[in-house]
Structure formats: C-alpha cells, structure tokens
C-alpha cells in the first residue's frame, strides 16, 4: 500500500514494537488479568447481596400469611387461654422452689433427717397440691380447644397444598387430572364458631378457678423463717396479680374476631421483636430474632470483655515494654492463635474448657462467684471464652499497629519532661492511639459476631432469651446464636419454605451488623489519621 506521503525515515524509536498476542501486548494482558480479578470480586459481592435480598424478602410475605392463618384458624384465641395456664404453671414452679428452700432449712438448720423433713412439710405439700390441681379444668379446656384449632389449621393447609397441586397440574397441561384434585374449602366462620362457642363455659370455669386458688391460699401453712415468710407473701402477691389478669383475658376472648386483618408491619415486627424462635411445631411457628440476637450479643460481649484487656494489654506490653527478644517470641505466638481452625477450638471447648469451667464452678471455694455452680457445660461463658481467643489476635495486631503509629516524638517529649515509662504509656501513647485501639476492638467484635463453628459447638444451643433477672449469672445459661441457627437449620429446611427464608433474613441481619461494625471502625480510623496530621 502506497501512502500518498511516505513516512519520513526516522531512527527516533517511539514506535511500539512489542510482541502482541491477539492484539494484546503483555502489559495489556496483565492489566486485563488484574482488572478481571477486581471485577470478579465486585460481581461476586453484588451477586451475594442480590441473592440474600431476593431470598430474604420473600420471608415477610410468608410470615404475614403465617400470622394470618394463626388468627383465622383460631390458634390465637386458644393461646389467650393457654397463656393463663402457663402463668399458673410458673406459679407452681415458685411453690416447688419454696418447698426446696424449706426442705434445706429443715435438714441443714434443724438437722432433721430427710424423712422427718418431708414429714414436717406435709401441710405445705397439701397446700401446693391443692393450688396446683385447681388448674385442671382449664387445662382440659385448653387441650380440647387445641385439638379443634389444630384440626382447622390442618384442613386449611391441606386445602392450600391441593390448590398448589392443581395449579401445577394445570401448568403442565394435565387439565383432567387438575380437575380431579379435590379442594375442600375451609369456611372459617363455621369452624371458628366451635371455638368461640366455649366462651360461656370458659367464664364459668375461670370464676371457679379463681375461687379455688383463693381457697387454696387460705390453707398455706406458716413458714419457719422470716425470709421464707417474705417469699410466701411474695407468692400471694404474684397469685393475686395472676387472678387480676382474668378480666382482661375474658375481654380479649369476647372481642376476638378471626376476620380482623393482620397489619402488614406485623410481619416485620413479629420478626424483629419476636421473643420466640419456634420451628416445625405442631401448633404455630414463630420466627422472632430476639433470642438469637441476644444470644449472639451476650456471647460477643463476654468474648470482648475477656479479649479487650488481653489483646490491648498484650499489644501495649509488646509494643512499649517488651525487649526485642520477647517481641520476637510473643508476636508470632499470638498471631498463631488465629491459625487454629475454629472447629478445633470448638472441639477443645466441648472436651476441655466446658468440663473445666463446670468443675471449677462446683468447687466450694468458688461458690461466691455469681452463677456458680452451674450444670450446663456449654453456655455463654464457655463460648465467650473461646471466642475471646479468636478475637485476641485481631485486636492485638490492630492495636499494636495503632500503638506503633504513635510518633516517637511524643514519647521522647514525655520522657524529656520527666515522665516514667508507665506515665508515658497511660497519658500519651494510649490516648494518642485510642481511636486505633477502638477500631481494633470493633473489628474484633465483627470477627466474633460472625464466628459460627465455636458458638454452634459451645454455646449450648438453647433457643431462649437469657434470663437477665439472674444478674451476672446470666452468662452461665446456654443460648443459641444467629450464626449457629443458620448453620444448624439450613441443611434441613425445605427450599423456598418460610423457615428457609427466615434463615436468610437472619443472614441478612448478620450481613448488616458486620457492615455497620466495619463501617464504624473505618470511620474512627480515618478520623484518627486526620487528628495525628
């Protein structure tokens, strides 16, 4: 090809003469490789987020239907009465506790033999039996109603399943077979009448119940000590509080209406503030995140309480006080902890730490520690101790970095003014690195909240809100956690079911929690950089 103007001959080497494959130079290939990697990570993050949201948000619609069925099938109605029954059960537990106290008083203080002690408690036992048995008619009613309501719900669910089956058949083009599917429509108005029809019977029964309780209370024998008398008085108070709730319950039963709509926000609030996580129940499934969240929170708090002094203290020691030889030894040791697989730590927790803590708690010399002795080997404390071990390397490494970043000039100035090493650390070095240390702690928290294996193995996996009335002893209770529940239940649930989606929403919650913690840590670190200048 002849160009009209021939290019001027030049020995000025600016032309690109590199080797090209598919039109790409080596530089281009490298650029594409790295760019591709970055792109893939962004894409994966986007996909994960999308997937979480897509699977998670379906939950709220399903939960709304779940709550609607609960009302329409009359389960809600029955639960009003059931609440009374369980409140009464709680009262009888109080009585058993009172008996236990009297018994130990009789054997320990009065030095009676167990048989003699039991003998002395006959009057109390009669009273307790009278009080406990008074619930029987109510209990009978509840179990009768439970059966009816369950029947209604089952009928409704079967009808729904059939409808789905017909839809599928129609979609597949099997019209004849679809028409053959029998769908029994559930007329809630009729079904629920059977439940509400028992209201007069209930009213009569409740009045009788109150009378029996009051009569039983009159037979309560006198207590041997002032302390126990106070407890009995407390019981009387609780009992009268209990009977005072009856009119309200009756009102709820009278005004109950199965047609009342369930507001849409309840699908959210029942999840966010629900105090029960109850699945695969014959009665009603509840998906409330509170017990799981509280479990995660408590375990993380215990972990942080242990890990912050340990991690920050070790960082201060290594960075400010230790000799070079000590540094060379301690730093790799602490960093090595993070190399232990968490399942191994969990295993250690079950086999060693849980046993050890329980054994310690049962030593008489340690009986003064709140919560000691305890019998649950796996609890908040055990899991918290192990999680602390997981958080320590994170907190240590980041806090040490923060301390390292404190300009040496600050330390020199402090020493030159006649400060001791300790004064310099406390008054200059730690305050100057405080934001770095705080963000180290936050990242440690993020690490702990997301940790799964250890809590699944060591937290005890009892789905209940910890009983904070126990004070500090709350840490000896078993809990379940947000991460643990996902790991435990995700394998067993039916894809697309409400339970499956509920687990996704828990996952979403974790996702946002970690996001918030990391964001906060970043913010604090940035502020810190500016302030140092």
């Amino acid at each position, binding site marked *: 090809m002849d160009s009209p103007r021939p290019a001027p001959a030049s020995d000025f080497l600016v032309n690109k003469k590199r080797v090209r494959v598919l039109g790409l130079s080596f530089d281009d290939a490298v650029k594409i490789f790295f760019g591709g990697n970055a792109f893939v990570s962004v894409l994966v993050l986007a996909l994960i987020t999308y997937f979480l949201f897509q699977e998670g948000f379906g939950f709220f619609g399903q939960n709304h239907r779940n709550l609607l069925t609960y009302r329409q099938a009359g389960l809600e109605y029955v639960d009003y009465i059931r609440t009374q029954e369980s409140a009464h059960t709680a009262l009888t537990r109080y009585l058993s506790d009172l008996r236990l106290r009297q018994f130990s008083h009789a054997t320990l203080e009065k030095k009676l033999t167990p048989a003699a002690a039991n003998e002395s408690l006959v009057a109390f036992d009669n009273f307790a039996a009278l009080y406990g048995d008074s619930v029987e008619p109510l209990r009978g009613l509840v179990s009768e109603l439970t059966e009816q309501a369950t029947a209604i719900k089952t009928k409704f669910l079967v009808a729904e399943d059939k409808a789905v089956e017909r839809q599928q058949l129609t979609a597949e083009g099997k019209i004849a077979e679809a028409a053959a599917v029998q769908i029994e429509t559930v007329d809630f108005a009729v079904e629920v009448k059977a439940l509400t029809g028992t209201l007069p019977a209930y009213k009569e029964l409740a009045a009788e119940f109150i009378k029996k309780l009051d009569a039983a209370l009159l037979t309560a024998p006198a207590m041997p000590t002032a302390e126990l008398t106070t407890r009995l008085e407390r019981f009387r108070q609780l009992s009268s509080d209990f009977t005072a709730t009856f009119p309200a319950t009756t009102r709820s039963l009278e005004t109950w209406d199965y047609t009342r709509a369930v507001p849409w926000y309840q699908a959210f609030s029942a999840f966010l503030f629900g105090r029960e996580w109850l699945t695969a129940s014959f009665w009603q499934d509840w998906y409330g995140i509170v017990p799981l969240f509280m479990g995660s929170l408590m375990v993380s708090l215990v972990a942080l309480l242990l890990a912050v002094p340990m991690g920050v203290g070790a960082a201060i020691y290594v960075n400010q006080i230790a000799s*070079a030889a000590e540094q060379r030894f301690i730093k790799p040791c602490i960093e090595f902890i993070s190399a232990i697989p968490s399942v191994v730590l969990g295993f250690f927790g079950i086999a060693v730490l849980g046993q050890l803590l329980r054994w310690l708690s049962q030593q008489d010399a340690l009986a003064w520690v709140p919560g000691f002795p305890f019998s649950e080997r796996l609890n908040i404390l055990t899991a918290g101790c192990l999680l602390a071990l997981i958080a320590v390397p994170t907190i240590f490494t980041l806090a040490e970095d923060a301390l390292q970043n404190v*300009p040496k*000039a*600050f*330390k*020199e*100035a*402090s*020493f*030159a*003014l*006649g*400060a*001791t090493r300790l*004064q310099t650390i406390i*008054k*200059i070095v730690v*305050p*100057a690195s405080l934001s770095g240390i705080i963000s180290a702690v936050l990242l440690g928290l993020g690490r702990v909240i997301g940790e799964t294996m250890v809590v699944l193995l060591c937290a005890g996996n009892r789905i209940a809100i910890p009983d904070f009335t126990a004070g500090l002893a709350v840490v000896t209770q078993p809990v379940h956690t947000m991460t643990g529940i996902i790991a435990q239940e995700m394998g067993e649930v039916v894809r697309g079911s409400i339970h499956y989606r509920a687990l996704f929403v828990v996952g979403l919650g974790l996702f946002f929690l970690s996001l918030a913690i990391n964001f906060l840590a970043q913010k604090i670190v940035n502020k810190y950089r500016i*302030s*140092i*200048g």
Partner: protein
Amino acid sequence: MDIKTPFTASSSGRSSPVSAAPVGAILIDIDHVDFYYGASQALHDINLKIEEKKVTAFIGPSGCGKSTLLRCLNRMNDLIDGTRVAKGQIKIRGIDIYDPSVDVIELRKRVGMVFQKSNPFPKSIYENITYGLRLQGRSNKSDLDAVVEKSLRGAALWDEVKDRLHTSGLGLSGGQQQRLCIARAIAVEPEVILMDEPCSALDPIATVKVEELIQELRTKFTIVIVTHNMQQAARCSDKTAFFYMGKLIEFADTRAIFMNPANAQTEAYVSGRFG
C-alpha cells in the same frame, strides 16, 4: 561565604555576649567521655565544661556527635538499646548523672529538652504545658493557670494563644508549635534547657522569633543548643564547641571560634569550606 557578615550584623544589634558576660560558674562538667552505639564509638574522649546561665552552641557537620552528646546530658540515649557511656563522667553540679543512684526521672525534670521537630502532644495547649506539672502531682487549678500564663509569656506565645488555650496544640503553626514546646519545657522550671536544632524545621521569620526567645531565656536558664546553622550559633551563643568525627575539636568563646579559630579544621568549617 564570608562568615564575618552575620556575626558583625548580630553584634551590631546588641552588645557582644562574650565581652558582657563574666566568667560563669561551671554547671555541667563533661569529663573525658567515650560513648558507644553498640559497637561503634560515637564520642571520643569529650572534655567540656558548660557554664551556668550561658548559651553554649554545639556545631559541626552531620554525624559528628553533637546531638549524641546533647542527649547524653539528660540521658535520653538510655531509650536507645545498646548505648553506653564507656568511659568518663558527666557531672551536673558535681553529681555524676550516670551514677546508678541517680534517678533519671528527676534528672530530666532538671534538664529539659526541645526537639528538632516540634512535637506538641495531641492535646490542648493548656494540657501540653501542664503535662509536666501534673506528672509531678500538681493539680491546683489556679496554680496551673498561673504557670501556663507564665510559661507562655516566657516563650513569647501568650498573646497569640491566650484566647484558645483549650484548642489542640497541633492546630498552631510550625513556629508556634516549637515555642509551645519551649513553653512546655520551661513550665517545669528546669535548670538546663537542651535544644536539638530547634529551628531547622522553621521558616526564617519563626526562626528569628525562637532566636529572640533564646536571648531572653539565657538570663534564667543554662541553654545548650545544637545547630547546623553557623550564623545561628554566632548570633545566639556565648560559647561554641566544634565537633568533628565524634571528637571535640575546639571549644571557646563564640567570638573567638568565628573570628579567630585556633584549629585549622574549625577555620575550614566556620568559613564554609566543608560541612
């Protein structure tokens, strides 16, 4: 470079310090000191007497040991691993400061220091100045207030910062920060103030202010200043010591060092032929 110009310029500004000052009492007696960083010897047989209420300047090319010697005077070198005074003694008011019975914390309260790069703490101006006093357990508010004002006035900074004592010391300009550091040092009322190239990071105007400040401080404190800037040594100091390769080459009245050096190396350095 003509070395006479700065010197004559400064001496025309005020009476010559050398002729005006009587022979002072010896405050610091550096007696045949050898100093090592690990295996390498940084100071060779230094023998020097620093007079009370005078400004003594250490000059010399980089790495000559002048900063090392300065940091020996309040034992700041203790903070560096492997350093030691192998031979000789440093006595302040007759007391060997490297004696095991000496409390280094007490020593540093008596011998204050201002560093090359201004290093106010990331705290308020007020807290910066009261830091040393609080370390000594003084916490009386009106007492501290008085010291803050006195120190800031002493460092010629009071008028500039009196309305923002509780804002961060890091918000000040470079020169102000350095004067804050001087104020912080004089707040604990030391006898000696060591200055390690206090103006090397400052602009000319800030430098002038700090130099003027040094002239005021010399009436109350004994000042030892390390400087790279020969004009500064000529302008500010009464006595000058010239170091080279870890050895004290010449120590004399400043005027003598600059006008009439006895040693050929000194002459070469102060006239700018090397360094």
